């Protein structure tokens, strides 16, 4: 994780027609600085990742250094949804509802392999990655990730927040799911993403 240099996203593009003025960019900087350093997390802990998340929030690793000491157990006051742990299909409408109750601006972190991809639980009961239910900004790998890993993910999210610009209208647009299927991404893509790979191809166990 720490071996490759982090890619530099904030490359200056020079396009005179779309440049904002001095006031707008400074205001952007101020607002983003404030937001990035006071992200209030909505903890959605369902499994062992939540234990690591608690460790991250506790004194040794101290999430409060990033302005996140205030766990928001109400989605109405939260900025970032941290999904820590596997999400079964039974919980899918719950996390979707929590996400929709959060006000803009909002971000989501999929913490750990289960929340990101379903992990080893390639079975009838577990959602194959929460990005099939809600849009996700940062994926933290690991099973479970160490607190350092989660903090790296949080710092990546802060980078993302700091590089947002007010005149970019796409950022704050609330994504609406497809009214018919209630999905954000088309069904064939979900099927393709959830396709088993590697050794698990042979673990169908159907028809004995």
């Amino acid at each position, binding site marked *: 994780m720490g071996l490759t240099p982090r890619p530099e996203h904030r490359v200056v593009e020079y396009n005179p027609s779309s440049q904002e003025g001095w006031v707008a960019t400074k205001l952007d900087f101020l607002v983003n600085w404030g937001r990035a350093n006071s992200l209030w997390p909505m903890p959605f802990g369902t499994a062992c990742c939540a234990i690591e998340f608690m460790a991250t929030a506790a004194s040794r690793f101290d999430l409060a250094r990033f302005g996140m000491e205030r766990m928001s157990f109400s989605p109405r006051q939260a900025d970032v949804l941290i999904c820590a742990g596997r999400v079964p299909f039974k919980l899918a409408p719950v996390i979707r509802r929590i996400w929709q109750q959060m006000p803009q601006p909002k971000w989501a972190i999929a913490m750990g392999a289960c929340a990101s991809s379903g992990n080893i639980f390639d079975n009838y009961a577990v959602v194959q990655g929460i990005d099939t239910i809600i849009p996700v900004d940062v994926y933290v790998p690991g099973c479970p990730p160490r607190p350092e890993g989660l903090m790296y993910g949080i710092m990546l999210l802060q980078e993302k927040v700091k590089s947002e610009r007010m005149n970019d209208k796409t950022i704050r647009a609330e994504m609406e799911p497809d009214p018919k299927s209630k999905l954000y991404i088309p069904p064939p893509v979900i099927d393709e993403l959830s396709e088993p790979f590697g050794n698990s191809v042979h673990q169908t166990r*159907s028809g004995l």
Partner: protein
Amino acid sequence: MSDGFEIQYPGNALGNAAPAPVTPRDVPNRGGDQNPSGAALRQQFADAIERVDVVWGVTNVYVRPDRVLDIVRWLHDDSSQRYDYLSDVTAVEYRDLEAPIEVVWHLRSLPFRRELRLKAQLPKNKPLEIASVWSIYKCADWLERECFDMFGIRFIGHPDLRRILMWEQYREGFPLRKDFPLRGRFSRAEQLRQALAANPEARYSMEELSIADAFEDLPTDMRKRLKGGERTGE
């Protein structure tokens, strides 16, 4: 049952000379000391007992499925047995497609410090039905619901036989059956679509005790919905 209850200390029916409990050592795979309840059952229900054997120190009694309720009631009520604790109700399906599905009851007698495993075999060519022991052990409620949810065995006489682990609109079948594919029957997108179509609040119905208790504190729309007699599965 209604006139109070008497505290049961483990082994209190064995008298003052009760030996202290010891961890069993060198337990053989098959055979060994049989639980005295096995012989007592043979004497009491000769025609209903198919087989008694001892596996890893626990006595298995295979009983006829239609006599389960009588046998369990006798084991619970008889003063020489006093099986006052039902620790599990579950089922087993074997890989052999011809082999019947077994329903298993784990019974524990605290006063006698005994453990007994009852098994009943349900052939697959008939509907999977067996009597519920809920009238004897109230804890069988959720255990039998789980067994129904996972295997599709109907417990006759159960007060509220609904799915318990999977959501109630789940339509893919019974996950622990051998003919159930590991990843479910539908595609991932279809599974997700069906799961998201559920209303998370509709999981609650007045059958849930905690909901009935907290009824006055619920939001108005939910109260209206519940008062209309709506149940979870509908």
